[in-house]
């Protein structure tokens, strides 16, 4: 399942949902807000999502992962709104019988989420400017 939230993400509570007596491996990924992007000092990040399609596309990605890797349990949470340095913007957790599929499935899910979910982030820089990430051409045309 995918959740969209404006609150803190708590990985420890979330990973418990993935417990399965047949699971020997758990892999978790978190995207944290970092203080730098492409040479710019970043102060905070604002996430905007179009939730109806973020949810349906997220569920589609999780279903694809479960199809590729049998016996997988997978869950993810994405935050929206304003986030500070060090906060968790996205969490992906998977449990599987063995570690190979746990790593591969977790990686598949986060890679797909990043390019397919209708989510945008705006960086607020130390110099007072701001900019939409991945949107250099948009910015030029503004």
């Amino acid at each position, binding site marked *: 399942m995918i959740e969209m939230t404006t609150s803190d993400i708590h990985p420890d509570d979330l990973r418990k949902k993935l417990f399965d007596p047949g699971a020997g491996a758990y892999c978790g990924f978190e*995207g944290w807000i970092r203080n730098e992007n492409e040479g710019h000092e970043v102060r905070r990040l604002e996430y*905007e*999502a*179009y939730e*109806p*399609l*973020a949810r349906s*596309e997220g569920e589609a990605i999780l279903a694809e992962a479960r199809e590729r890797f049998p016996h997988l349990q997978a869950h993810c949470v*994405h935050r929206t709104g304003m986030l500070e340095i060090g906060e968790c*913007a*996205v969490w992906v957790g998977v449990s599987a019988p063995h570690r190979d599929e746990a790593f591969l499935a977790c990686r598949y899910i*986060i890679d797909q*989420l*990043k*390019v*397919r*979910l*209708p*989510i*945008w*982030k*705006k960086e607020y820089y130390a110099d007072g400017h701001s900019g*939409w*990430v*991945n*949107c250099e*051409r*948009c*910015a*030029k*045309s*503004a």
Partner: protein
Amino acid sequence: MKTVTVRYFAMFREHAGVDEETLSIDVETAADVFRATRERHGSAEPSGHCKVAINDVMADWDSPVGDGDTVLLFPPVAGG
């Protein structure tokens, strides 16, 4: 002419200055809608890395747009 509601997101919204607007335009496909709004708001953004949805379903640029449809214009995404 068709009545089409266009919704803008992120950079596109800031650029258009509105969340959504309803237009009477002569269009066949999602690409036509994109071009019309680009001209309307003076943008030169190519559609290459952008995405489009029609009535809350992901679509292609050559998907047909009907009278009364809502077209969602997504600038390049950057989740996570």
